[in-house]
């Protein structure tokens, strides 16, 4: 077996891969925090202060409402997304290990988990 194929059977590496699924999310969110918090009190560094960039007629209530609805929608999507990724990993690979599913497209990463034609509804695995 070639090195590439043997790699897929090394258990510690598989565990490491499994456990690292939250890392991209942590990287994105903490990176964002670093940029946004680190830039304060500037909104454009050295040019425009955050206090001067505020919309003068924006009320606290409007800002609160927008924050609450953003957080709730984000939480809903994040919750389901994490659940679907977890279930996807727990189910494990099916079919041929080294073949990309024919419906997979680069702009839809989750399509890697799709099997069969798009109208087929019987592909949902464990957890249901």
């Amino acid at each position: 077996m070639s090195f590439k194929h043997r790699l897929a059977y090394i258990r510690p590496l598989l565990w490491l891969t499994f456990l690292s699924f939250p890392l991209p999310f942590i990287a994105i969110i903490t990176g964002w925090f670093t940029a946004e918090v680190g830039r304060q009190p500037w909104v454009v560094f050295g040019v425009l202060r955050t206090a001067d960039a505020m919309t003068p007629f924006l009320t606290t209530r409007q800002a609160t409402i927008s924050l609450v609805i953003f957080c709730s929608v984000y939480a809903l999507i994040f919750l389901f997304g994490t659940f679907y990724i977890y279930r996807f990993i727990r189910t494990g690979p099916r079919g041929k290990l080294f073949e990309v599913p024919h419906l997979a497209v680069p702009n839809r990463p989750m399509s890697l988990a799709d099997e069969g034609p798009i109208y087929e509804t019987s592909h949902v695995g464990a957890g249901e």
Partner: protein
Amino acid sequence: MVMFWVSLLAISILLYVLLDGVDLGVGLLFGLANGEERRAGMLSAVAPIWDGNETWLVITAVILWGAFPVVYATLLSAFYLPLIVMLLGLILRGVAFEFRYKTQRLRWIWDLSFAGGSLIATFIQGMTVGALVEGLQFTNGQYSGGEVGWLTPFAVLCGIGLCLGYALLGACWLAKKCEAEIRDVAHRQIPVLAMGVLAFLVAVFAYALAENLPILERWIDRPYLFVFPAIGAVAAAVLALSILRHDDHRPFYTVALIFISAFGTLALSFWPYMIPFLITVDQAAAPQIQPYVHVLGLRGDRLSTDADLHAHQLQGLQGQGRNNRRALNWHFPDLTQVPFFGRCRRAS
């Protein structure tokens, strides 16, 4: 240069309305469809294109931000809550494409978020345009209408009208792209939706007459502006013919033409204003994109002292500026001199 950015803005808005109108419309009709096969088929008809279509909204926002910052700041702040809710609608319908096939028991959540998100986004887009047409309340160039100052019966009517319009566009797309039951249902929906859009246009016209909205006077004053509504009427007649013939392809192109003529009608009604009767195209243009216009004196009341400084530096270019002005007038006869009409809520 200003005309270049205005044209680019117009093109990106028009492309957004036409392209995302298709998949928002399919989203609206998706809510009415039942049966997994039909729903999956409808989703597949837009799945490969929807995110590309939506990108034109980002391009529109970026052009506004970079080239017309005053308009960007004024409109996005005035419509703060509705635009946030619109974005959430777009997020929910976008994620439905991914999550729908990951579950069976809870698929209704994503079906609901696809149809509901499409409905929210479409309604708010129509409502925003309606509120803008009717006129927002400004004090010293700043929005002063309050948190829900945009919520008027006319704005709600425009929201409903755009839902009908996008649904019509979506139905025409489904008739063009799909087969069997989806196509048959779409063929039945097209005449109903077309009548709905027609009723909406009549209602808007009646409302404009009753309220004597300022744009109506501009139309009566300049009958040659009726070229766009005339194109729309011809397209509507062709649409009626193609409905009778059960044509699969022609309805889509005629409805697209009706949208283009409606867009042209709206744009011409307000030219040269970007925010009706408050800020013109030239006043809104960022100083970086308008080296000549200041020199021409096309700006009425100036908004920025930076821009004036810029104008002084460029006085050497006056000769070129005159040519530029001639070019502007050639493309848009008289329109830059349209007098200030009617009900302006600006308090100076």
